[in-house]
């Protein structure tokens, strides 16, 4: 953890220094962060219940250079660029959902309602997890509120996990797309390891696309960026899911599952910062961060960097000196 965030570092930091407010105060264009501290269940490793808090703290650490600057501005020695953190952005941290230690149908309902209300108020819901299953609540909430959106999933898996009697669900099943649709409603980046054949088939059936971690290792980040560009052309609204499980375990051990051959944190942040999706986002979900499984704290830090990268121009602006 950083030693440089002024003297105000606290264990209960809000996300990026956003103010703690209520749902009623959400306005158009505001970024609305809320956490779902749900743990994973067997056979996956537990520890995700501390995810939202760890992501908030890691984000403050990642923004240390900005907050050490009175003008919230940093200089890049390598590129010469000067970037300012937009303090004027309306950011709201609603806190974490109470009494949700595991994912249940009730938890998913709460996430759905919260997402829908933020989206109805024209805010951008940002969900901090928590077990990866929380994505289901967010997609349902957005479907009841927004018009059609594409689902960009950055994960090593093609499904969301089984929890508490809720069966595992293919990512394609989260979208109400007809099999004949010409849309390109789903893009999965970073898939790795053995995946059920059925999930591959279902994604192809809805004209989705999968870019594996191996593709990115072999063909570079440009390959993933091209896929995102194609996806972005077809979808005016995008829900982005960043599953910490996409990262290689050697870099980020704090996830419920293990991933050998996953992406590096640098690959992830490079892809997200160059994707330029900020203006199209209708929601962001960060999941599967289990800080207690990573004594060095790399996982939450990598995810904090990834989340800042995807929000890009919503939080930062380049200025000339």
């Amino acid at each position: 953890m950083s030693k440089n965030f002024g003297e105000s570092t606290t264990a209960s930091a809000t996300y990026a220094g956003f103010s703690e407010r209520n749902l009623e105060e959400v306005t158009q264009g505001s970024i609305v962060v809320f956490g779902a501290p749900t743990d994973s269940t067997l056979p996956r490793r537990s520890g995700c219940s501390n995810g939202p808090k760890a992501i908030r703290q890691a984000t403050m650490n990642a923004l240390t250079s900005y907050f050490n600057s009175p003008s919230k501005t940093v200089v890049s020695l390598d590129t010469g660029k000067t970037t300012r953190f937009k303090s004027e952005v309306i950011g709201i941290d609603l806190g974490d959902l109470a009494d949700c230690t595991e994912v249940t149908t009730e938890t998913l309902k709460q996430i759905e309602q919260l997402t829908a209300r933020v989206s109805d108020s024209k805010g951008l819901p940002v969900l901090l997890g928590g077990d990866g299953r929380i994505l289901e609540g967010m997609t349902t909430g957005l479907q009841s509120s927004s018009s059609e959106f594409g689902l960009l999933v950055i994960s090593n898996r093609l499904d969301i996990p089984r929890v508490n009697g809720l069966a595992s669900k293919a990512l394609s099943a989260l979208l109400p797309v007809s099999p004949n649709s010409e849309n390109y409603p789903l893009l999965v980046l970073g898939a790795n390891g053995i995946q059920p054949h059925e999930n591959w088939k279902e994604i192809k059936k809805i004209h989705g696309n999968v870019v594996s971690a191996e593709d990115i290792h072999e063909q570079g980040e440009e390959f993933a960026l091209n896929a995102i560009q194609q996806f972005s052309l077809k979808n005016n609204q995008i829900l982005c899911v960043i599953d910490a499980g996409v990262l290689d375990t050697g870099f980020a051990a704090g996830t419920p599952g293990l991933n050998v051959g996953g992406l590096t944190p640098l690959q992830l942040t490079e892809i997200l910062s160059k994707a330029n999706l900020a203006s199209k986002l209708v929601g962001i979900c960060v999941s599967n961060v289990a800080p207690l499984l990573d004594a060095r704290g790399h996982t939450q830090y990598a995810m904090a960097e990834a989340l800042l990268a995807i929000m890009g121009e919503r939080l930062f602006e380049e200025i000339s000196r």
Partner: protein
Amino acid sequence: MSSVDSILSMQSVPSFFGAPIGDIEDLSEEKIAVTGLFCDHFSGGEPGARYAARQLRYASLPLLTHGQNISPSNNIIDVGELNVFPIEPMKTQSILKEQSFRIHQTGAKLLALGGDYSLIPALVSGQLKARPNSDLKIIRISRNLDTAEISNPQKKPLNRSCATRQLGDYCGGAKSIALLGVSDSSSLEEYEYLVDSFVRSAQQLSSSLAGLTEQILDGLPDKNVSFYLSVDIDVLAMPSIRSNSPYLGTGLTPKQLTSLILELGKLPIIGADVTGYIPDLDISGSAASVTVVEIIRSVIEAMSQEGVLCR
């Protein structure tokens, strides 16, 4: 001798690289006094760097016993930990300055290990007091600038975020400082303080070290200078070692860092420190400790070299 006797093998009290344990009367010119800093209390972040010196003493022993090529210099003496007052910053600052002064008065060079960077200005202050006629410049290897405005020095005399600026004040301003390996993103106001200084990012250094020392000297009006070398382990790229600063992205590899330090050995280095290492975060057991030991070894080697580039 019984068979049991032949198996028993006793090790002496661990010291840095197995160096002789000594006191101030054992110091003289050409000696390097290696000391530990059991203090990380004034930087506001994650504690643990205070245990680095103890861990590094133990970590350097297997390297000796297994015959690796660490060739400890015969000019180093382990003088133990410097005295500190963990909850009294004013007293800590004062006593560190006094101890540094007394060590440097013997003509020996001081190498401080462990602890936090916030303590280093006090040590340099003592060094300047002992050698008032020396033209001392600072070479700082870290990802952070640590040049925030100095505020309320009476209340907070030891403050990591402005430690480099304190060093600049002691040594004649920002031009006296060379900062190497800094993060690609640095606070605008902190960077502006260093606008006339020699600053290189980790990425710039990782491409080439050729001519680096000459460039540092070129920026100085008088080449008849000596240098203080301050190394923070936070300059290393993740995931090789985690130090007290979170860092993701470009940084130096251990090999690049030791090469950089050895390159700087062309300059006359009369004092040094290695701070910022937290042994508790070395979850692999001792891999990071051994890496830091190697880095310290290169610092000792650099301090032992003649400064060939200075008159």
